[in-house]
C-alpha cells in the first residue's frame, strides 16, 4: 500500500500563542431579561474562552439588573477581547475586570469569596474530630443528625478547597459551592 499522502499546508494561518495565560475575575452588570445568561456563556463557549467559576443573581430588583461574576483564564490579549466581546451584548451595561483594577491599586486580587455547603456523614469518635476541624475553619453547622453534619463555610476558594480536602477522610458525602462573589476594595463603586 502507498504511504498516506499528507497536505503540504492549510488555507489558514495558524500562529503559536506566546503569551502566558492568567486568571482574572470579571464583573458584568446586565439587564435581567430572558436569555441574558445564555448570551454571556454562549459567547464564552462559542469563542473558546474558559469559565472557571460563574455566579449570577439579580442585585437591583427595581431596575431588574443582575450581576454576573466570571472567573476566566486567558492571555492578556484574550482577556481584553473577552471584555470587548461582552460589551457588545445588547443587555450588558458594564464589564469590569476586577483583577486589572485590583492590580492598579497595588493589590494582587479583588476580594473574592465563596460559600459552600458540605455534608459529612459518620458516627463515633470521627464526629468530634469533624466538629473540631470545622470550628478551626469557622464553618457553621446548619443541619445535623446523629449520622451527619451539614456545614456552611465562607471564604476564599482556596480555603473552601482545603476544608473539603480535610473532610474527605472524615466521611465527606456531598459538596455544593456557589462560585465566586467578588468586589474591589476601597470606596469606588463598579
Amino acid at each position: 500500500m502507498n504511504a498516506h499522502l499528507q497536505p503540504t499546508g492549510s488555507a489558514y494561518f495558524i500562529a503559536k500563542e506566546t503569551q502566558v495565560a492568567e486568571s482574572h475575575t470579571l464583573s458584568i452588570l446586565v439587564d435581567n431579561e430572558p436569555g441574558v445568561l445564555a448570551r454571556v456563556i454562549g459567547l464564552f463557549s462559542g469563542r473558546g474562552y474558559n469559565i472557571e467559576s460563574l455566579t449570577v443573581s439579580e442585585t437591583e430588583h427595581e431596575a431588574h439588573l443582575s450581576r454576573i461574576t466570571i472567573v476566566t483564564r486567558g492571555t492578556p490579549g484574550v482577556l481584553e477581547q473577552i471584555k470587548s466581546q461582552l460589551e457588545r451584548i445588547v443587555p450588558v451595561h458594564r464589564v469590569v475586570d476586577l483583577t486589572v483594577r485590583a492590580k492598579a491599586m497595588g493589590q494582587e486580587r479583588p476580594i473574592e469569596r465563596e460559600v459552600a455547603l458540605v455534608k459529612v456523614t459518620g458516627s463515633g469518635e470521627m464526629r468530634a474530630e469533624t466538629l473540631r476541624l470545622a470550628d478551626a475553619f469557622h464553618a457553621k453547622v446548619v443541619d445535623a443528625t446523629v449520622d451527619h453534619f451539614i456545614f456552611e463555610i465562607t471564604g476564599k476558594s482556596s480555603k473552601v478547597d482545603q476544608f473539603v480536602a480535610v473532610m474527605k477522610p472524615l466521611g465527606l458525602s456531598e459538596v455544593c459551592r456557589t462560585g465566586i462573589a467578588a468586589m474591589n476594595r476601597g470606596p469606588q463603586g463598579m
Partner: protein
Amino acid sequence: MSGTENQMTGAEIVLQALRDNGVEHIFGYPGGAVLPIYDEIFQQDDIEHILVRHEQGAGHMAEGYARSTGKVGVMLVTSGPGATNAVTPLQDALMDSIPLVCLTGQVPTTLIGSDAFQECDTVGITRPCTKHNWLVKDVNELARIIHEAFRVAQSGRPGPVVVDIPKDVQFATGTYTPPSAAPIQKSYQPKLQGDARQIEAAVQLMKTARRPIIYSGGGVVNSGPEASRLLRELVEITGFPITSTLMGLGAYPHSGKNWLGMLGMHGSYEANMAMHDCDVMVCIGARFDDRITGRLNAFSPNSKKIHIDIDPSSINKNVRVDIPILGDVGNVLEDMVRLWRAGSKDYDKTVQADWWTSITKWRARNSFAYKQSNDVIMPQYAIQRLYELTKDRDTYITTEVGQHQMWAAQFYGFEQPNRWMTSGGLGTMGYGFPAAIGVQVAHRDSLVIDIAGDASIQMCIQEMSCAVQYNLPVKIFILNNQYMGMVRQWQQLLHGNRLSNSYTEAMPDFVKLAEAYGGVGIACDKPGDLDAAIQEMIDVKRPVIFDCRVANLANCFPMIPSGKAHNEMLLPDEATDEAVANAIDAKGRQLV
C-alpha cells in the same frame, strides 16, 4: 373614542411597525406560524412582499437590498424550517455587518417547548448568529421590540436581528406604541464620536509618516456616502496611497490616482508590498481579517498603526495597534480632515516621494497579468470585457464565492460605494444571485449583474423563479470552468493536485435551465464572440443566465500562500507548475 385607535392585533402591529420604520419591501415565505401576518400583507398596499423560493434566498435578497440602499433589509419567515433556513444569511450579515431585521413566526406560546409541529428554539439557534434577538410573549411589547430591532440592526456596527413572534401573539389584540413613544434599552448606546485626543494624536503621527498607507474597509461603506466622500477628501489632502479590503471596494474610486487596488490573499502586489513596508498605517473601518494580514507575526512589522472602528472588539483583536479610535468612521473622518486641514500649511507631500517611487516600481510588476488566449475565454478577460461594456451604465455587481469573486474584485473597477455586494466574511456560495434580486428590487431600472461560478450559482438557482415572477431583469454571468475553481486551486497547491470532488461531472445546460424558468439563456465560448454576447445580455430586459465557458484550469493570482507574509506573494509570471507545487514549503506542513 380615545385610546381605541391604538388597539390592534399583533399582525396589524407588525405591519404598522414596519411602515413606521420606513419599510417598503420585505422578502419572505409564508407558513403556518406566520399566516396572520400574511393575511395583513394581503390587505394592504404600502409594503411590497417579494415571494422567494427558499428562506436563504430571502435573507440574501434582504442583504443585497440593504447594502445597495443603506437601508435595513427585512425578511419574514415561518417557524421551524423557515427559521433554520434563515441561519446562513443571518450569519453572513453578522460577519459582513449588514443591517437585517428577520421576523420569524413561532408556534403559540402555550405550545413552546412541547416539540410542536414546525417548532424550533429560534432564539436559541439564532443567538450566536445575530446581533440581538427577541421572543415576543406579550402583544403589548411587540411594537416596542420591532422598533428596537430596527434601532439595534442599523446603529453602531450594523448587523442582523431576529424577532420571534408566536402565532397567538399575532392574533391577540394589544396597544400599538409608535417609534417616538417607545422606550429604548439603555444598555445599548453605541459611541459615534471619536476621542478628540486620539484623533489629534493620529493626525500628528500621520504628518510624520514617510511611508504612509490608508487601509480602508466595509465600515466606510456602512457609515454612509458621507464617509466615502470624507475618505476621498482625506486621501486628496494627505496624498497618501490607499488600498481596501474586499468589502470596502468603491469607497475610494478605482480610477483615483492614489488607488493601489485591493489588498490581501489575492490582492495586488503593490497594495501588499506597501502594507508590509509602510511606517504609518491608517486602518479605517476594517478588521485585520486573516485573509488580509497573511502570517500575523510578519504583518507590517515596522509600522505604527492607527485603527478607526465603531466596534471595540475589532480593536486589538488580531493585530495590536498604537492609536485606536473608537467611533463611527464618518464622524472620525470629519474630525480628522478638519484637523489635518487646520495644520496642513507646514505639510510637504514630497516627503513621500521615495515611497511613491517604490510604489510605482511595484505597480510595474503588473501583478494581475494573465496569458491571453485567442481560442478560449480567459476568466479574467471575461470580467474585463464585462467591465468595459457596463462601466458607463448604472450598474450594480454581486458575486458568489470563489475564484470568480476574486477575479471580479481584481478586474471590475468600482467608482462608487454600495455598488458591490459580496459575501466577504462568511464566504457564502449562493449569496450572489438572491443578493442581486434584492438590489434589483431596490433599483428597478439599474443593470444588476451577479458574477457567478458554475458551482455557486447552483446553490440558490431556484430564485430564477422569483426573478421571473417579479420581472426583475437580473443578469447571472457564470464563469463556467466545470470546477469548484477555488477548491481545485487549493487542492493543486496543497493536496498534490488530488482533485477530490471538485469537478462537476453532470453540469446542467444553463441555457435550457434559464428557458425552463422563463428567463433567457446565452452561451459563449469564443473570445471573439464575447462582446456581442455580453451586449445581448445587457439589452435583454429579462432575467438572463449567461453561460460563459472559460479556461478550465486557470488559477487566481497573485496569491499569498499560507504561512507567508505580504512580501512573499506568488506572482502570476512566477507561478509555473513547479513554483505552485513548491509554494508551501516544509514549514507549511506544521500549519495543520
